[in-house]
């Protein structure tokens, strides 16, 4: 089985080390990772300049509309997407469902998203991500949650936001919560760190490391509700390393054009003239739904802890 960490190859080369796992997301920085449900969409995403694609059975907006249990995609679909593009392919596993993760790793996906968008398989425990050769990305609403996931071996973080709504408010809330807590930590006296770690519910060593470095020890993207180029640039200006766009592209009127615009907005996030230019005539955005209008059982971000 390929899930043994840091397998030693005969020639002295090592796969699956922490460094190798954390490095893949570093190469994705400044880019847009797009949800795709088939090979055709994956090709459109690649053509538009996506730095990676996320393979899933249904985009979050459809998962919301259809209801029922949302699971890992059909391996056949994942394999077809892997064959169709040269950029990295990610795929989602349910929270705590380490067997779905083992299957995805064996298929050759480049990164696994242990995602609250799918129906959780375990309400108490997340996957032990250290055991895998490939990196994981996980969602978080605040610094404590991010550091718990990193403690379990996540090599990349993203805000949870509120997927499938087209409402950016929750992604903004989570990005501000994480980045704000890091700023607060940097001016905190060392003797307060243990108590702060206890209050966050986060490993002390990671809290200390974040204070020293002034940033998370892994790449941090925004996700959940990003639907326009301006949304992407907003999160980039707040200080994330890149963005995920889920339903926002293929639920819009002109996916290719919108995808290209969001890619450009993520590169030129600090340039309002470029942002104005790429935001022109994009056609219909996805039909949004305010995050506030969701009933508690419709809220995805509360899945996981």
């Amino acid at each position, binding site marked *: 089985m390929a899930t043994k960490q840091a397998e030693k190859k005969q020639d002295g*080369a090592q796969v699956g080390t922490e460094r*190798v796992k954390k490095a893949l997301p570093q190469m994705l920085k400044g880019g847009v990772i797009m949800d795709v449900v088939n090979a055709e969409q994956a090709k459109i995403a690649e053509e538009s300049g996506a730095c990676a694609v996320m393979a899933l059975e249904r985009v979050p907006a459809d998962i919301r509309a259809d209801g029922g249990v949302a699971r890992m995609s059909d391996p056949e679909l994942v394999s077809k997407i*892997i064959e169709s593009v040269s950029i990295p392919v990610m795929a989602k596993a349910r929270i705590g469902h380490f067997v779905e993760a083992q299957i995805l790793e064996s298929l*050759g996906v480049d990164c696994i998203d242990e995602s609250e968008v799918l129906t959780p398989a375990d309400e108490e425990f997340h996957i032990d991500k250290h055991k895998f050769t490939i990196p994981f990305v996980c969602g978080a609403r605040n610094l404590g949650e991010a550091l718990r996931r990193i403690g379990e071996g996540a090599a990349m973080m993203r805000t949870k936001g509120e997927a499938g709504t087209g409402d950016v408010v929750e992604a903004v809330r989570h990005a501000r919560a994480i980045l704000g807590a890091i700023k607060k930590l940097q001016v905190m006296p060392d003797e307060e760190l243990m108590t702060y770690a206890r209050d966050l519910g986060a490993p002390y060593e990671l809290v200390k490391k974040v204070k020293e470095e002034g940033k998370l020890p892994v790449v941090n993207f925004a996700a959940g509700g990003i639907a326009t180029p301006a949304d992407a640039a907003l999160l980039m200006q707040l200080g994330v390393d890149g963005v995920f766009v889920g339903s926002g592209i293929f639920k819009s009127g002109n996916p290719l054009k919108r995808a290209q615009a969001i890619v450009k907005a993520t590169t030129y996030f600090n340039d309002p003239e470029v942002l104005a230019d790429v935001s022109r005539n994009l056609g219909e955005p996805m039909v949004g739904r305010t995050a506030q209008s969701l009933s508690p059982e419709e809220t995805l971000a509360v899945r996981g802890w």
Partner: protein
Amino acid sequence: MSNPLVGVLAIQGDFAEHRHAIEQAGARSAEIRHLRDLEKIDALIIPGGESTTINKFDDNFGGQVFATLNDCAKNGMPIYGTCMGSIVLATHIEGREQRSTGLMDITVRRNAYGPQKKSFETYLDIKELGAEPFLAIFIRAPQIVSVGSGVTVMATVNDTIAMARQKNILVTTFHPEITSDMRVHEYFLSMIKKPEAPATATPALALSK
């Protein structure tokens, strides 16, 4: 040249890590997002990332970016490409129709080691960087499968080429910018000070795997 300004292509990829590394090595750095940004710099780094996204940069400026890079290179500006950057600089990309600047006489194979689960780290002997082996991290890396007669091979991994130089153009298929060892970036800075061709050139060799 003291305190040179090194531009890092900042369209997508780990450009922040390259800026940090080249500053640690003793240079100033600047992010390159517009054609005009290329005018003021002494050297250029093309970082790791996805080569398909870099072609968008060329598209954004009407295909003039690759032409400008060609002019810069002909005028002797040192250019260093890591991983994806080596694809952007290659004359040939195996089995695929993809634009590149064609500044270096090499043939590259994209994602040559396979998906991320095959990505690896290892120590390389790089004579020009001294006796201490260099920690090289390969992420969905390409391979340089053959080089032209003007290209010097500087490092190999499993009989495939991982680092090479042709006059003022340098490529590595691995990522020195994500380690704390600055020797590759220091070597690149030395190319600004001494823009001459390398002293020795190995004859053309074609490796297959």
